[in-house]
């Protein structure tokens, strides 16, 4: 089968599913970059460089790490926060899969049915999906590739995502920490973060405690 490269978009209104173009998922210990299967270590390096080279790198944590389903979820949430602080990256939650009417608040949340709105609003150029159920991640990744120029990274706890520009598989707590360690290593080698300065918003029941910058 011909090799179909999964690049950052905008590709088309309806980009093809990468699987339908012959792309396959990585085996354990592997990852894929643009559809090409590579050893996991190579993907850590590429992901860390993409994050550090981005102007608005952002993590989209999903329900599996936002809700304290068990202690593992809680520990993973902690690791995600540490990763975000290390890079630095913004955190914008995908709290709900249900469509929201009349519209989402694109500055503070992302919805899988129209993720492009959040990407456009915040001018996000690199994002990481983590803790999002696979079927919803697939939907979002395709929409993002179709209509935005954002580079997508999937840290999937299952078998990975063909539709991401870069995808890990079996991503557990250790792997999130390893990505953080790779970023630390690159920084120590002199690679500087290109992220524009920002303030991470903080919210409570009455709304903003700290407004996003």
């Amino acid at each position, binding site marked *: 089968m011909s090799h179909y490269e999964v690049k950052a978009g905008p590709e088309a209104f309806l980009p093809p599913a990468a699987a339908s173009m012959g792309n396959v998922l990585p085996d354990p210990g592997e990852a894929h970059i643009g559809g090409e299967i590579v050893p996991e270590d190579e993907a850590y390096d590429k992901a860390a460089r993409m994050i550090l080279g981005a102007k608005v790198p952002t993590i989209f*944590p999903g329900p599996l*790490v*936002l*809700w*304290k*389903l068990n202690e593992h*979820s*809680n520990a*993973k*949430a*902690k690791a*995600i*926060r540490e990763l975000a602080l290390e890079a630095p990256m913004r*955190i*914008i*939650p995908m*709290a*709900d899969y*249900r*469509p*929201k*009417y009349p519209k989402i*608040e694109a500055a*503070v*949340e992302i919805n899988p049915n129209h993720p492009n709105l959040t990407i456009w609003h915040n001018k996000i150029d690199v994002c990481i999906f983590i803790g999002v159920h696979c079927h919803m991640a697939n939907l979002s990744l395709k929409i993002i590739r179709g209509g935005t120029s954002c580079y997508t990274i999937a840290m999937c706890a299952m078998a990975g995502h063909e539709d991401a520009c870069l995808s890990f598989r079996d991503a557990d707590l250790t792997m999130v920490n390893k990505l953080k360690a790779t970023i630390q290593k690159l920084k120590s080698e002199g690679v500087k973060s290109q992220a524009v300065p920002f303030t*991470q*918003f*903080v*919210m*409570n*029941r*009455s*709304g903003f*405690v700290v407004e996003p910058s």
Partner: protein
Amino acid sequence: MSKEKIVLCDDLADVMPPEYHELVENATYGDQDRGWKDIGSSKELIEQHSLCAGCPESIAFRYILASLPAPEDTVFVGSTGCTSLVFPHVAVHNIHSLFGNQNAIASGLKRTLKSRFPGVEKDVVVLAGDGATVDIGLDMTMQSWFRQEKFTTICFDNELYANTGGQESGLMQKGFVAKMAPKGKNFEKVRLAEIAREAGCAYVAVLTVSKPNRVEQVIKNAVLVAREIGPTFVQLYTPCILEIGKQSMEGLDEMKDSEQIGGRFVQKEYITDEAQKLLDSIKEETKIRKKAAKEAKKLVNA
């Protein structure tokens, strides 16, 4: 699933939008007295819906979800129809079955849950339209009643096939002219409640969704009786305002008119003696529990 799981992770709670903080604080999981009065503040089960503006089905959904005795241990089985448009917005486990197959699926599900979770009472509730319950799925519906399967069947009766353009259904009233039934219906409305009673349902109720307290009581009765005794059936009139030529604001009036004396949906219940005995004992237990809670509160305040 339990209320303990409706908690945000410590390190990411501060990035969650306000409505999720509210959801955690107002969740009703585990509350024995949850009911329709929680609709305004509790939204862990449903918040928005995708039905037409003013659709009585949407409010029926809210009342039903608010009335479930144990939503964390309930599984819905739905079927094709307007109801299936709402399930993607509902945070209760649900299965979409083939058109008309819902009671067969629910039978298997109930038995499996009983075997898989022997120590937990898992409720199965079928929620389907009149097409799925009475026309296409009547065989499956009735066979599950004959077999005395212990789950609740709720039929949203809008008296026609709504989302396919208004075809005649078994529950349509005689003489009614619909968009796709231009000559009017030649036969009487199927008396499903009486069929359910004769087929072995321990608790049967027919009503509209104009009065939330009545809907709450009926749903609670149906689910609790199904747990202990046998099949139960609830027929709710949820008129399709589009197909009967009404405006968004007129759904409630339509339901109120139809439940007047002599109307098609005057509230009625058929309860077996065994079911009545069970409901009486539950009522008594609730009364004692509430009284004890009130006295305990008094002591704390004193």
